[in-house]
């Protein structure tokens, strides 16, 4: 039975083959001569772990504006109302999916995307360097994906956020991710959460080593403004559509944990 369940994992995982860029996000494979003052830029190094042929990658979320959220919710309500007769007709045991359970293709602005390991600025044996042109805003390390689309594990039990300002490169430092049901060769993870956690689905873990002002900047970018990201702890959040939940590994001086509580290590206080 376990083999059958594991085979189903492959079917259940988000389809990684169809991977397009998010609207407003461009992975730069060549260093720009100058920065667009209206855009923000994210510089990160990322680990190269895979599961099968698919990369294990990070999912970033830009905190949307209220107008963006309102627009999305309004469109979803309209789509749900339109689909409701059909959903009711097909409902098993009379249970109609709620609007939260309703899968909705939105054609509006996008705020969540995968860091695609294949679209790198600088290659490396253990780590690749990515430079992403993105909308300015505050970004959350939201979770981890298998392949360059979808979400498998959310960092729902604790993570960090940072601001990306326009006209400069925000250096996120080094990000790590891998399967964590057993010890991983990828460093800086909370791994070995238990082998039986792999019986029914993937559980990925992520780690972060922030950049500091003393860290060397790639030669390609030395003529451009590169500022280390200033990270802040983010408390528990829900992502009901994630196949598994985890937390970003502790980040000394930024993110800690006390039992289940997320601790802002800048203040020593729990994050509500």
């Amino acid at each position, binding site marked *: *039975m376990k083999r*059958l*369940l594991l085979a*189903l994992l492959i*079917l*259940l995982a*988000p389809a990684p083959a169809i991977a*397009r860029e*998010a*609207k407003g*996000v461009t992975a730069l494979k060549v260093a720009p001569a100058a920065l667009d003052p209206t855009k923000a830029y994210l510089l990160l190094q990322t680990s190269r772990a895979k599961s099968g042929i698919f990369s294990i990658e990070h*999912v970033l*979320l830009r*905190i*949307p504006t209220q107008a963006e959220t309102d627009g*999305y919710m309004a469109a979803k309500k309209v789509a749900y109302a339109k689909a409701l007769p059909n959903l009711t007709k097909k409902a098993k045991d009379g*249970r109609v*999916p709620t609007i*939260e*359970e*309703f*899968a*909705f*293709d939105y054609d*509006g*602005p*996008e*705020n*969540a*995307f*995968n860091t695609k390991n294949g679209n790198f600025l600088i290659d490396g044996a253990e780590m690749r360097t990515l430079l992403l042109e993105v909308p300015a805003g505050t970004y959350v390390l*939201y979770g981890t994906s298998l392949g360059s*689309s*979808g*979400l498998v594990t959310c960092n*729902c*039990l604790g993570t960090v956020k940072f601001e990306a300002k326009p006209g400069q490169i925000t250096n996120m430092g080094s990000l790590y991710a891998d399967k964590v049901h057993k010890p991983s060769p990828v460093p800086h993870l909370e791994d070995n959460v238990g*082998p*039986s*956690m792999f*019986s*029914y*689905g993937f559980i990925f873990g992520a780690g972060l080593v922030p950049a500091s002002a003393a860290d060397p900047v790639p030669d390609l970018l030395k003529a451009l403004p590169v500022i280390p990201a200033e990270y802040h702890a*983010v*408390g528990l*959040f*829900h*992502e*009901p*559509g*994630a*196949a*598994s*939940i*985890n*937390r970003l590994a502790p980040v000394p001086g930024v993110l800690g944990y006390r*039992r*289940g*509580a997320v601790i802002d290590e800048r203040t020593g206080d729990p994050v*509500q």
Partner: protein
Amino acid sequence: MRGRLMIAAGWLACSGPLAGQTVEGLPDPATITVPDTSASDPEVLKEGYKFFYFHNPSVSFAEASADIAECRSFLASGAPPSVPGFIPWTEPIKRKQNSGPGMFGATYGLIGVGITAGLAAIIMPKMERGVRNNKLRRCMEPRGYSRFALPEASWKVLNQGDEKQLILMQARLASGPRPVLGEVTE
């Protein structure tokens, strides 16, 4: 911690008056009936990775109630997010209660296209139980909880039905005497 306890107690108390209420709206745990948790049967021990409950020797009934309510809130069902795409996010973050019966009906409904409906009916409940167990483990174990095996029938009593009553039953077991047998370590 006190804030979380108040929230949990307040939420649990929303279901109406409960007999023998003591701590901030929570009932006296002695008044809560729990199912049989004996784990002397080798088959129960063998199946412990599937059918278990949590126990923590250092928590009160109120703390266990808060922990279980918070961790079970991560079982709320929803459609998988579109990535790349739009994911709502508002601060301060508001967390939901777990009220749905499961996730696979909505989230992975297409699986039935790839396999026969009969096979899906057998496999999907097992998949759903495993995914839900994993979410609970990842949330509860860093808080110091261990798992203990119990009979499948008892597991169903602890995990199916009124959400508030489930939390109270599980909290009584989690904060009660440490079980002698049946710790699940795999």
